[in-house]
Structure formats: C-alpha cells, structure tokens
C-alpha cells in the first residue's frame, strides 16, 4: 500500500531533443497523450492517469519546430509541454542535460522525436519500473517482441558487428547498447550523465555501461524501431571509427 502511494506521486519528465522535427513533433506529442492519458497501466486503478510533462529541447531549428511546439502548448497546456530551446545546434548529449535541468519529475524518459521510438511503449517502461523497482529501464530492439524496420543489409551488418564486439569486450549485461529510448530514475540520470564525455552513439553506450558498472538495477523492455519517416538521419563511415574509439575508451575507463 505504501509502495502504491509512492507510485501514485510519480511524475515522468519526457525529454525530447529536436532538430528540424516540425512534422514529427506534433505527431509525437499527440501519440504520447494518446498512450498515457487513459487507463493504460493495468496494475491498479490508482494509475489511471500518469503524471507527466514533455520537455522539448530544440536547438534553433530553422524549419519552425518551435512555432509548432508553441501551438501545441496552446492545445495541451504549458504545464504539460515545456519548450526549453537553445540558440543553436549544440549536440545531443548536452541537450539531455539541458532538458534534465528543467525536469520536475522523479523519473525521466529520453526518446527521439522522429517517431522511431513509438510512445505506445511508454506504459511498458513505466510498468516494468514499477514491477521491478529498477533504476533504469532500457528499450531493446534485439529480443523477441522487438525489432527494426527500414535498415538495409549494410546497416544491419554494422549494427550486429558493433554489438558482438561490445558484448564480447565489455560484458555490459544489456542487449541493446546504442538504443536511446530509456527511462531513468532522475537522480541516477543526473549522476551518470555527469560522468559521461562521449558523443553520438557512443554516448548512449557510455551511459548504460557506466550505470551498469556502478551497480544500478537495469531492466529491459522490447521495443520496435521504425527508421524515420520524415526528415533525414546521419550515419557515416566516420561513425564506425568513432564507435571503435569509444569502445577502447570504455575499456580503459570503466
């Protein structure tokens, strides 16, 4: 009962970094509300409505993402949609810490705006955390029930190779190291993020490896990942070099 009362006061801050996501952000917000504002967590009637806020960290997108966010604030309310913009493109890692500074929840969810991370999985993250008391729940694409759509053979090969290499060398205890759809206890995220220095995909890997080394309880839920429908993404050959450097860095520092 005490546990339930604690749960009832849980608040989830959903941090969404955006850069040129005008079309996606409106859809994402709509879907988040659709999946959290009804009886989605069949644990108890107490959890009928999940208390949450969406923190959008926009890096001065030239496509007018912020105008769309302001319209969304009119519709959904400024207490639910927070726009915490930055003047220029400063990168993802710092976008998270920027959003984190404005988070009022005791839990933080990090997800992409491009709809690769579907909000329909939010209830399973929350449910998993409640059931296990985990400090981190991470979405994994590489178990049954999970999956990826829209990758060509080369992309799949790189991803598998990178994963086997990291699993063999780092023994991280989680199956998906570079995914970024995760739920953190806020205090844990604050602590882990402050010790991370990497960028890009390595950043996601560093976060989870450091958390795992610190002994935090990490759980996984299956997610599917549909590569972005609108806008463009970046993955080049230099990413692979960065990845290998990141791996070596983690080997000697964790």
């Amino acid at each position, binding site marked *: 009962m005490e546990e339930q009362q604690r749960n009832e006061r849980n608040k989830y801050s959903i941090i969404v970094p955006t850069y040129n996501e005008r079309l996606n952000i409106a859809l994402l917000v709509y879907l988040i509300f659709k999946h959290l504002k009804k009886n989605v967590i069949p644990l108890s009637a107490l959890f009928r409505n999940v208390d949450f806020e969406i923190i959008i960290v926009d890096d001065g997108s030239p496509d007018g993402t912020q105008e769309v966010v302001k319209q969304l604030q009119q519709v959904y309310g400024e207490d639910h949609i927070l726009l915490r913009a930055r003047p220029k493109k400063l990168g993802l890692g710092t976008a998270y810490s920027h959003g984190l500074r404005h988070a009022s929840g005791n839990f933080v969810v990090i997800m992409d705006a491009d709809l690769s991370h579907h909000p329909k999985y939010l209830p399973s993250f929350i449910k998993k955390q409640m059931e296990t008391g985990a400090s981190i729940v991470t979405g994994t694409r590489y178990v049954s029930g999970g999956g990826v759509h*829209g990758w060509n053979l080369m992309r799949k090969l790189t991803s598998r190779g990178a994963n086997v*290499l990291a699993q*063999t*060398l780092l023994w991280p205890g989680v199956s998906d190291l570079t995914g970024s759809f995760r739920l953190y206890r806020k205090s844990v995220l604050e602590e882990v993020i402050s010790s991370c220095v990497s960028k890009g995909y390595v950043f996601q890997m560093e976060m989870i490896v450091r958390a795992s080394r610190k002994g935090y309880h990490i759980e996984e839920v299956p997610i599917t990942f549909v590569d972005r429908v609108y806008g463009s993404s970046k993955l080049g050959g230099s990413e692979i070099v960065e990845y290998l450097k990141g791996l070596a860095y983690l*080997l000697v520092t964790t």
Partner: protein
Amino acid sequence: MKHIVKIMTLLMAISSFWIGLLEMLVVPPNYTWVLPLYFIVLVGCYGLLMVGVGLMRFPTCPQEAGLLQQVVFPLTLMVSLL
C-alpha cells in the same frame, strides 16, 4: 577494477594454463605450440558466427511500419493544413 584489467587477467590465466601444459609435457610439445593459434582462430570463428547468426535472425517489424504509417498519414494531412 578497470575492465581492461579484467580482460588482461583472463588472458593471463589462459596463457599460464598454456605454459603449464608446455612445462609439464602433458601434451606433446609440438602440439601445444599450435594451441594459441587454435585459440585465436576459435575467437575469430566465434565472432563471425555471432555476427552471422545475429544477421540471419535479425528481428524485423514490417507490420510496425505499416501501423505507424496508418497513424501518421492522416495526422500529417491535418498538421500541414494548420
């Protein structure tokens, strides 16, 4: 303990086992000398096998793309009319 130290320890344990075999002459020496080669080949095969198996069983979700498209398309129309 830094992770690289753990891995080094593991490698050291394996090589001392190998040196032990060499010293005690349990296996004929000419055979023992090729054991490290076997080890390296084995590790390589393991890696290739894991990548291969992972690639063959790569979980995909075409139906999810369809579902997303069904939600996205009408909403995009609405948003673009705003």
